[in-house]
């Protein structure tokens, strides 16, 4: 076989291998980017900020953190190894549709609207942005206990959290007066959201 032909064949094979490798190997998962709903990570509050706002466990109970991502933190409430409930705080920036259910909410906890989702889940929307949720697991929790747990989160400090890059506009703590009208231009939306604090 003449030398140039050998070179061409060799290069062709190497090229095929490279292309095949790029197409067939599962690299695509590892490319950077690809955030939820294509919303930049900077606009979402990091889950680390939520951790210290979780309720302190009662006697004989423990809170074990299970997941922490951008805009999400989740912990498990356990008693003696038995799972009682999932406790979670999430930033609804990546899931705006989750806010819709609070429009028809009749109940409140500490001034924030409360919604029941099925027999085991209670959710609270804080500062029109952060969803706090308690989901009973296993044998389940009664609504009063779930509401008590929701109230035990550090809600004032949660309402005062800001996104790192200020992409959402400045949010003031609810104690300083009239925060929701500043961040919601359509101010007629929720007079009911005035925190009682």
């Amino acid at each position, binding site marked *: 076989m003449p030398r140039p032909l050998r070179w061409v064949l060799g290069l062709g094979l190497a090229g095929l291998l490279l292309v095949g490798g790029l197409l067939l190997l599962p690299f695509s998962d590892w490319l950077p980017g*690809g955030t*939820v709903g294509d919303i930049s990570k900077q606009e979402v509050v990091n889950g680390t900020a939520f951790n210290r706002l979780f309720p302190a466990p009662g006697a004989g109970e423990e809170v074990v953190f299970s997941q922490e991502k951008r805009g999400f933190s989740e912990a*498990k409430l356990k008693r003696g190894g038995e799972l009682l409930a999932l406790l979670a705080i999430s930033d609804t920036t990546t899931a705006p549709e989750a806010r819709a259910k609070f429009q028809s909410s009749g109940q409140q906890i500490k001034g924030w609207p409360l919604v029941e989702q*099925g027999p*085991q889940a209670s959710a609270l929307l804080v500062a029109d942005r952060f969803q706090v949720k308690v*989901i009973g697991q296993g044998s389940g929790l009664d609504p009063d206990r779930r509401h008590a747990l929701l109230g035990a989160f550090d809600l004032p400090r949660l309402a005062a959290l800001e996104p790192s890059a200020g992409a959402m506009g400045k949010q003031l703590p609810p104690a300083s007066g009239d925060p929701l009208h500043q961040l919601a231009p359509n101010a007629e939306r929720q007079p009911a959201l005035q925190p009682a604090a």
Partner: protein
Amino acid sequence: MSRTVLERLERLPRRDLTVLALKGISTLVPGGWSNPTSADQLIREVIGSNDPELIRLVRARADQLSGARAEGYGRALSLYDAVNRSQHATGGLRFLANVTAGLPLLKRISSITPPSDTLQAVDLSLKVGAELLAFTQVNGLPGDSFGDFGAALADYAGEARVRMAALICFDGLLPLGDQALQRLDGLLGAAGSGELRKLPAYGRMAALIPGRGDEAHMGFLRKGVDQWLGWAGGFVGQLGLSGQKAVQALEGSIGPWQGRMDQLAAFLDAFTDTYAHTGVQAVARRLVERAAAEI
């Protein structure tokens, strides 16, 4: 190519050798194992409701989350797949070596395969390392302190008890003997980066393991294994796991086994997907727990 996590959960086999092997091992673990392969059933369990509208919402959110690369659910599964392929390759070679050892013409195959304890130890540590990497991809770094992180890791392992029992039995106790966990550190100390290079999965994982170069990677794996050994030692003691018990449990579901324990381990490595199978189930559960909290 890119199936969502819940689609992959629903495509898992309901009855094959993998499921039988796991069923066998699960008899050693309190609480048992039911091979969850239905996404809707999993969602019902997590939210404690039968409302089809809620289930649809959770599912839609879970699919959106597993489609987002940065959230790491898909990455964890690709890690499990890489380890699974590597396990098939090395297990297949070891099995072939065992089968052909008696045939004169094919004897050479058994002499070129390295079924050494060291290679097996490195394989186990690579699996434990993949487990740690996958954990951080799925769960992030939960909590504010190292103690929180340790508690989260132990909690996750406790949730996936059958998965951990399968890992300890199939990759530790059966091929390496009952003292596997105690021997592991010594075996890894004796292992050079050459052994690491022989494993097909290492090529795929190398870029993900912190540190540069084979030596640094070996150091990371040993540290990860040290963490895991503390937990696994307690687990083995608590359940009284041993190679003999594992063989008996497997015989109950798969059928009688006449050969040596390490041959059984090679057979299982070559023909079952226990690691990836339970991995998909563990990731799916965490994903649904998150989706349920975000809808």
